[in-house]
């Protein structure tokens, strides 16, 4: 009796316990796992949906104009003929101008903040730079429109035209009526917006260098600039390029700040001071005037798909570079 009850008793209790465990597992762990995996997949699906919606929305434009959509610089709502080249041109030109200004500034600021400034000053100033990055883009737009635009119209462009307006190649860049709006103003606003962002990434990169590398250079008698130029910069070159490309992605997708100062003209020309358009600003300005299901709306969606592709490329490139360098850092 005793002998049989023992083994008979213990499996049942064991079974009961494992049943309870399984039930609790279903209530807790399994449900939780499904929940978080679902959240992950939702995020995954979200981006897929965004890309699909852009592509499907743009199908009409792509099928009407074919590949010519990408290389045509016509944007004419009256004749209902649309091409992507002018806004793509504007997007690239403003972003490149923005980066040409922002990257040296960001490099200088990151150099100063990580290598030169006393720690306490660096913390305060660094935070101010970060606050600049937090200012909403529409505020940059207003600031650009009411503060930077008059400066450009009254001082910068007239002076440039006066000094280099007659030089053969450079002269073409500064032609046009001094509206103050245009690619150059857009580029400057973008520079101010992107600079703190690039500074932040560079700062992280520069301060992540192993101290022994810096110390050995200082031990050899190098100045701080030489340490920067010949030790830190070569060590973090790829990451710096990654930061720049990340900034490029930011600049290309920026909408509100550029919309205020770009001038809204779909043209391609040499002058940096003539009004232009970027993909994002064109969408913001023209979308409210385009009827649902119209060819114009479809063209705007197609432009959105192009912008998505551009920012995707920028992110991929920067991830590749930042990722490689952080792997180097770990090694």
């Amino acid at each position: 009796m005793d002998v049989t009850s023992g083994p008979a008793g213990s499996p049942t209790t064991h079974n009961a316990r494992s049943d309870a465990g399984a039930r609790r597992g279903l209530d807790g762990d399994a449900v939780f796992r499904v929940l978080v995996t679902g959240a992950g997949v939702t995020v995954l699906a979200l981006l897929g949906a965004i890309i699909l919606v852009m592509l499907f929305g743009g199908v009409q434009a792509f099928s009407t104009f074919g590949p010519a959509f990408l290389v045509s610089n016509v944007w004419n709502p009256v004749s209902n003929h649309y091409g992507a080249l002018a806004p793509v041109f504007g997007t690239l030109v403003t972003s490149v101008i923005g980066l040409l200004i922002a990257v040296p500034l960001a490099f200088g600021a990151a150099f100063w903040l990580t290598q030169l400034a006393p720690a306490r000053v660096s913390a305060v100033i660094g935070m101010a730079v970060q606050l600049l990055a937090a200012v909403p883009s529409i505020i940059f737009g207003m600031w650009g429109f009411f503060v930077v635009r008059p400066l450009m119209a009254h001082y910068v462009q007239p002076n440039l035209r006066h000094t280099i307006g007659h030089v053969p190649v450079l002269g073409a860049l500064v032609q046009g009526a001094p509206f103050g709006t245009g690619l150059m103003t857009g580029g400057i606003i973008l520079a101010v917006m992107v600079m703190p962002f690039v500074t932040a990434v560079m700062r992280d990169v520069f301060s992540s260098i192993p101290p022994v590398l810096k110390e050995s250079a200082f031990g050899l008698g190098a100045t701080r600039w030489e340490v920067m130029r010949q030790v830190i910069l070569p060590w973090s070159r790829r990451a710096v390029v990654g930061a720049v490309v990340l900034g490029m992605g930011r600049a290309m997708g920026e909408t509100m700040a550029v919309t205020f100062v770009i001038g809204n003209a779909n043209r391609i020309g040499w002058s940096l001071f003539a009004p232009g358009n970027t993909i994002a600003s064109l969408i913001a300005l023209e979308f409210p005037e385009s009827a649902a299901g119209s060819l114009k709306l479809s063209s705007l969606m197609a432009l959105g798909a192009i912008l998505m592709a551009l920012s995707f490329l920028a992110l991929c490139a920067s991830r590749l570079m930042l990722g490689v360098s952080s792997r180097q850092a770990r090694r």
Partner: protein
Amino acid sequence: MSADQALKQASATPVAAEPDRWRVGSALVARRRFMDRLATVLSLCATSVALVALVSILLTLLVRGAAGLSLVTFTHSTASPGLNGGLANAIVGSLIQTVIAIAIGAPLGMLCGIFLANYGRGWVASTTRFVSDMLLSAPSILIGLFIYQIVVAPTGRFSGLAGGLALAILALPIVVRTTEDMLALVPTAMVEAGIALGARKWRVIVFICLRAARTGVITGILLAVARVTGETAPLLFTSLGNQEWSVNPAHPMASLPVTIYQYAGSAYEDWVQLAWTGALLVTLGVLAINIIVRVGFDRKGA
């Protein structure tokens, strides 16, 4: 005489050579020192450009925005030009849409962050991480277009809910990123202690890891609030804006950024004034959250 000269020369040579060598060195030292100084000055200039821009923006906002700040700003809705309107509907609309955005984006983002930190392995996790980064840097106007196509176009009306959804997509990746980063900082010993006590995995994650990472996660959510409050582009085609007082999320809803956008370019003095006042309010709010997060939470969190 000649011997004397020779002696003089012999004794003079080392003396003359010494300052000579020293002088070569001094030119090099001077050049290096000059380069160092130059780099220092230029980098200081670069830093001050950012500071000048920040100060210029804040001063412009204060000078132009503070003039229109009064009780009416907070008690009256926007009105036709000349009717002494305020920004009450825009402020409330912004708050409602931000709440919708955080109510959807924060839980989803936290769950996704937990997934990436504790469950994610293989290509699904790395793809999700990449996609989250992609969303973080996706042009916000495209998010607006997306919500327009899948919410506004099918239902046939612009709505505050659509605006909130668009903002939720923007808030989501910020919360994902901070949650994952903060969970990764939780010491393994703590997790092991929880497991050793027999707690199930989800209890360990929720009651130990998430609890330990609480400050960091809240920081992320606050940063998402700051980001979302200032966004204009995704709201243009989703919540559209509304002149009247409206708290119904099924109807077009005003928001501060969109109101600023619509009024800043208008020809009416008082509308432009309202735009400046709104801009001041938005900026102060966003910067205040950022300062609180960076000063208040940083030390405790990390």
